[in-house]
């Protein structure tokens, strides 16, 4: 927001004002500079989703994003939001996503994202979205073959990423897994195989300008002893987004609270934002989600 009023300008602020007291040529030049600056800032904010709390909290350079949820506060909506941004991203060419869907069929994502203003069918046709229907994965025989099935799956994903990269001068590609807990079930409990698969996916992020977003159900692992899948994922993550119910119980305006932990420190051009942990409330709507600080509604 750029307010034009009689006050000292402070360009670094979100809400700034520009001195228009005297209309000298010098002043009008300064005015133009400020306006340009704010337009640029707005363009950047557009890129990251109009500057809502979630996009502010998520640092731009995060390569591995882990989304945690529980039965009382499901976080599939976060995946939907990130998928929408991944497909909308990249000003001019590139950008793209691969969705490894174990939880829902394509029609579900299509309908949900359509209400959010993103046409998955169209993206799928134009090969910007690569949808892997893994509801029946691995299918066929189980046992020792799971490692092979996962290896095949990884090769398929790698091919997709390479093709997208080879295409235009690609923007950020996103590989999304919904969800890892089901992948573990598909692997018949073999967490090692699943971890191998995930580590291979992580290598894609460093080599191919690609980011990895995974959803995992935190409450499944919280009662386990030993170092499980969740602990490993939290370790390799750059960004951890955790959805939890409100401690005070249910409310009509608030569906839960989101905590975002920025573990990665490097963000391309800008210095690290300084704030590592963000915590705010959310309300899920048909066309997106509202994020707001506790006690306020935007």
């Amino acid at each position, binding site marked *: 927001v750029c307010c034009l009023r009689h006050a000292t300008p402070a360009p670094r602020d979100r809400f700034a004002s520009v001195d228009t007291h005297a209309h000298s040529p010098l002043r009008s030049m300064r005015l133009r500079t400020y306006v340009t600056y704010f337009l640029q800032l707005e363009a950047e904010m557009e890129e990251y989703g109009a500057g809502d709390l979630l996009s502010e909290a998520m640092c731009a350079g995060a390569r591995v994003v882990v989304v945690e949820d*529980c*039965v*009382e506060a*499901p976080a*599939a*909506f976060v995946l*939907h939001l990130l998928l929408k941004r991944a497909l909308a991203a990249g000003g001019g060419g590139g950008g793209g996503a691969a969705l490894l869907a174990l939880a829902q*069929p394509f*029609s*579900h994502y299509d*309908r*949900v994202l359509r*209400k959010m203003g993103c046409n998955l069918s169209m993206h799928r046709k134009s090969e910007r979205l690569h949808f892997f229907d893994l*509801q*029946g994965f691995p299918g066929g025989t189980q046992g020792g073959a799971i490692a092979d099935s996962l290896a095949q799956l990884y090769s398929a994903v790698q091919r997709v990423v390479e093709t997208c990269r080879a295409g235009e001068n690609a923007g950020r590609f996103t590989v999304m897994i919904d969800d890892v*807990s*089901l992948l573990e*079930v*598909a692997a*018949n*409990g073999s967490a090692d195989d699943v971890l191998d698969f995930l580590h291979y996916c992580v290598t894609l992020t460093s080599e191919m300008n690609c980011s990895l977003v995974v959803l995992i*159900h935190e*409450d*499944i*692992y919280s*009662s*386990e002893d030993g170092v499980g899948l969740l602990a490993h994922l939290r370790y390799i993550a750059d960004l951890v987004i955790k959805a939890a119910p409100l401690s005070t119980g*249910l409310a*009509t305006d608030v*569906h839960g609270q989101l905590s975002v932990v920025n573990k990665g420190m490097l963000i391309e051009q800008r210095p690290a934002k300084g704030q590592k942990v963000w915590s705010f409330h959310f309300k*899920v*709507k*048909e066309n997106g989600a509202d994020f707001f600080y506790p006690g306020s509604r935007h």
Partner: protein
Amino acid sequence: LSPGRVAAPPPMAAAATGTGGQTLGRSSFSRAASSKTASSSSSPTASGVKLGPNGAAFVSSGIPDLDRILDGGFLLGSVVMVMEDSDAPHHLLLLRAFMAQGVVHKQPLLFAAPMKEPRSFLGALPAPVASSKEDARQRAMGGGAAGDGRASDEGLRIAWQYRKYFGDERNSNAEHRDNKQEFSHDFDLRKPLERHLLNAQHIECLSTQDVDTLHDLQNRSSAFLSKHQRKEGGNLSAGRIAIQSLCAPQCGYFGKDWDMVSFLRSLKAMVRSSNAVAIITFPYTVLSDSFCKRWQHLADTLLSIKAIPDEDKDLAKLLTGYQDMVGFLHVHKVAQTNSQVPTQVNMT
């Protein structure tokens, strides 16, 4: 939950058709025909399936109150999971109502339970409450519909319609006796379902006791569901799968945690693309916390049952009608079609 309780009437039946005016053509009270769209979306089709927004289709759970709480009923294509109370068999009330509702609507049923002879459980299915009352009323009204213009009949009809406006459902139900198929029935748990209905039905039973693997159940479910594949604009014939105590210790596969959760995952995927509802009860206390959570995450609709202890003085003070209550039913999550918004109906 209390047995034999008379439920409030289902709201749909009253608004369903506009044929009431024609049934008693001599009446000077003519009811405005409900709009086409309203009746087509709210009236149940012959097979007991109700359509809702977002391409959703519902079947009744057999308990009208529960249907109302769940905003329609059980969603076709969803998996309902019920966490049993380890001390009490109240989950069987849900199962019996569910299965009886399916039988009344002539919906094919696949039933699996950890008992030697699951078919014997069918004898415990309750009969609908309304049937006996409706028969009596039909006999009483027979004279009026036949078309003899007796004054006493006329008077009876008018008074009867006034009662309808005051919301007495029983009378308006008889008025729509052409529309026999209500979406949901009230069941009298003291009265068993008529034998002939069970014999005419397509009911498969399967025992999970002493069975080593879940392959058989998986194959049978797959075969059952393939007959109910979802088609765009196709005939809405619904199927029902009821599995009792899936992880009970009597089951031969008990302890094979990953096999069980794998079965659930594949069942969910199969049900998803079909016009069927699967209800699965499970004694969650025999599962580890971690697997219990996995099962809960797999459920589309999650309910849990808690028995109310007898002779609890504090609860008796807190709840009216404590003597009649046997337990609490807690709704944790409700199935949604094609939507990311959670249903805020988490209530006990």
